[in-house]
């Protein structure tokens, strides 16, 4: 059909209409409709392409282990499905043949200006997720995705202020290639057969001051660090089936050295969602416990010492971890 202003574009995986017999019904609660295509992570995708099975876990730094009265069994906890841990935010989504993950760490310093730092990271991740879900991105260009997500923050009626680091990871399933963009000190690592084969590089202006995307409040326009999404470190990497991709905010990397993370990953039983969920929970919990250990020489403390700050112990921080496995 030749129609004048045809600007249609497909919407993520929602095109298969439901067929049903007899009298049609108009459901009162459309949440029921939504669930079918969204809840199972990769139901609508064809089988011969690789895909990611991912699970999320994390803690807000205000969830201190001291306040914790009993160990909460992971299965029962909604924390696992939450997308916000303190000032951290994350998302997992997909569009056609691309699986996309992202984490962002809101810069806490804004609290002193009366600004909730979690708003920035949450809205940044929401915007990136929406970009992906509506197909407004190119899988091989995650830095562009980050830039358009950032631009979208300025399009909100709500005046937003704050800043955040961000790390986006895109799996192009048709080419089995990982495209990444990382700005600041969040990051990802790809683990193959127990070894780190690929990872992000940290970007810092100076110690403990990562690169960040920011929207300064109008009155502080001059004084705020603002890096461009184009400054993000971008990489492309060919994946193999069974590769583990761990994407996390600095709350993990500052508190848990690689060998400890690898040790936990080695205990991963299979590539089923349940076991990934269990493993990511274990890592998050361990990182959180370490972050509150005052005597422990954490990766953060080591780095601080190198920069002349005599620091010991973990660094209490928000922790967000996305753990994904490339499966066939």
């Amino acid at each position, binding site marked *: 059909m030749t129609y004048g202003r045809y600007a249609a574009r497909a919407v993520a995986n929602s095109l298969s209409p439901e067929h049903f017999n007899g009298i049609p019904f108009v459901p009162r609660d459309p949440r029921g409709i939504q669930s079918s295509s969204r809840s199972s992570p990769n139901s609508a995708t064809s089988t011969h392409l690789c895909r990611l099975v991912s699970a999320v876990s994390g803690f807000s730094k205000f969830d201190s282990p001291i306040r914790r009265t009993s160990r909460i069994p992971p299965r029962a906890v909604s924390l696992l499905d939450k997308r916000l841990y303190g000032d951290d935010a994350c998302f997992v989504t997909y569009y056609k043949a691309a699986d996309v993950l992202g984490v962002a760490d809101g810069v806490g310093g804004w609290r002193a200006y009366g600004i909730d730092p979690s708003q920035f990271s949450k809205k940044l991740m929401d915007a990136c997720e929406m970009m992906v879900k509506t197909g407004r991105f190119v899988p091989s260009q995650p830095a562009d995705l980050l830039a358009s997500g950032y631009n979208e923050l300025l399009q909100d009626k709500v005046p937003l202020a704050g800043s955040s680091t961000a790390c986006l990871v895109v799996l192009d399933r048709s080419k089995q290639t990982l495209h990444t963009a990382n700005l600041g000190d969040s990051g990802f690592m790809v683990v193959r057969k127990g070894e780190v084969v690929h990872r992000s590089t940290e970007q810092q202006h100076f110690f403990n001051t990562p690169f960040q995307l920011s929207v300064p409040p*109008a009155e502080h326009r001059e004084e705020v660090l603002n890096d461009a999404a184009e400054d993000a470190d971008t990489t492309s990497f060919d994946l193999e089936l069974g590769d583990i991709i761990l994407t996390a905010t600095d709350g993990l990397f500052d508190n848990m050295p690689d060998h400890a993370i690898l040790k936990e990953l080695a205990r991963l039983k299979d590539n089923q969602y349940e076991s990934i969920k269990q493993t990511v929970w274990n890592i998050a919990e361990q990182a959180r416990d370490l972050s509150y250990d005052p005597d422990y020489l954490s990766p953060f403390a080591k780095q601080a010492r190198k920069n002349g700050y005599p620091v010991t112990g973990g660094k209490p921080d928000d922790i967000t971890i996305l753990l994904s496995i490339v499966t066939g």
Partner: protein
Amino acid sequence: MKQHGPKYIKQYAVGIIDYSSQYGGENRRSFSYSVSNIMGEPQIFPKYGDFTQAAVMRTYGPWWEKCSSPSFKKDHRPRAFPFTSQDYIDVVFDQAVYPWSIAIYETYNPGSLVRILALCQRFPKQTAKRHWEVLWDNPHPQSNLPNEARMFAPILREIKHRSRIIRLEFCHSHLDYYAELDAVELTGCHVRTYLFSEDLIFSESKIDYSLSSNVDPEPPSESEEEEPIQFSHPGGMFSLLPAELTSKIFSYLPFPDICRAAQVCSVFHDHSYDPSQLTCLNLHTYWHMVNENTLKGIVNRCQNGCTVQTLNMRWVGGGDIISPDHFNWFFRSCNLSSLSYLDVGSSPCITDEVLTTMTAVLPGLNHLNIESCDKPSSEGLRVLHKLKQLETLNLYRTKVDDAGIICVLHSNNNLQSLNLGSCQQITDYDRVFCEIAAHCKQMRIIDAWRARSLTSRGLNELAKNCQFLEELDFGWCGTLQSSTGCFTYLARCCPNLKKLFLTANRTVADAEIRMLAEYCIKLRQLDILGTRQVSVAAVELLLHQCKDLQFLDLSFCFSFTVDVVNRLRTMFPGVAIKRSFQE
């Protein structure tokens, strides 16, 4: 188990074909408040509030029309049916079905939907004529609906054709704030399942096509005229009335009835062809019924001496039911030399060729609206400079570029009202504003909604040279910085300011508000949505000083909590104070 009976298919919109306006920017990469958010499954429902992921249109309420817009000649002719539509969205679905139900997810200020139409293709395909059929209408939308998200699924009329393109028409003048939509869901089946009798359906669709049924109205034949025995005059007793009286009676007929009356007898025919009947022609109301035959009929009338002065063809040709060539022919064949007002907003029939013809045959045009016509190219729009007497020009959402608008400004020094909102191709709004300042000193109204490159340089130049400025819309002009003093300068230069929209400017502060309170006491409408820096005291001062103030949007301004706004509302009951929320 095999079940009999029709198979119903439920689908969400997969594309947007056309729309008349949107709150969001035109950048395809941006989704915030963009009409395209209506595609796909619901994202927001059942939440209620002002969210970026919703489809939002450009206006609401009476505010945009309330200000002293240029005086268009009002069409006093009654309409064949009530028509209140102000905006539309054409959505496309994956599969063509006989529509059984259409559900709209409304997530903010519900109650704006007033009509649903389906674009049908007649089968078999060789007579592939497209036409619109009305599935549902409710010209008197409900106001004061509860503030909660709702899924609205009106009962549809049965139609005889399958369709995958649906037009939703909205009226939002009765709403308290912007209407926001989340999704649209079409349920239908591939085979017809009629509950009503064919006759009923046929008669309904017959009404819809009345406009085209009067093509080439032939004068009644001799034999018919001889038949009536009682009256010796053609046209019965009507011919005994003074012609002026019959003409007056005819002026109370809706346009389709005039067309129909022409077929009755020679007296009616002559009266309906009276030039005075068509000085003001509003086809907007009947846009879905206007086809190539209708245009032929109008050309006929014009050749018989009708002098159309006001022609409203908004939305006409929607769904490409009329070819641009035919539109071109229409403008060429109609004698429209006395036309002063032409509105062809959102008409897909307007192309470069049509514009060229229009500018050649309409030299005396004073008011032109071609908003949301996305076919004319930047180069094609340059022919507009051939018009020399423009007073109002609406180029909202067109592809006009810097060179195009500048040459229009050079040749139309009497321009008083200009809409350049969401014109993506204009790269340097400052330069355009400087040209306005240099050539169009009479300028009163400027809409520069989402003018991305506008800075204080352009604004200061405008304020210095155009002292008659009354209405300014600088919504979402993020590059205008109040720290340059441009708004305070504007306030000092333009004491006649009645409307000022600084939506989402973010930099507006107390200094600007106090300056407005001091110098612009005629202010009626002010929008400062989304600034952190305005205090309650400054706004109170403004409310005290500007006695004419009717509208004040303080949404997402941090100091203005629900309690503060409620207190202000009680103190100033004459002002509609807006405070949107995103809970």
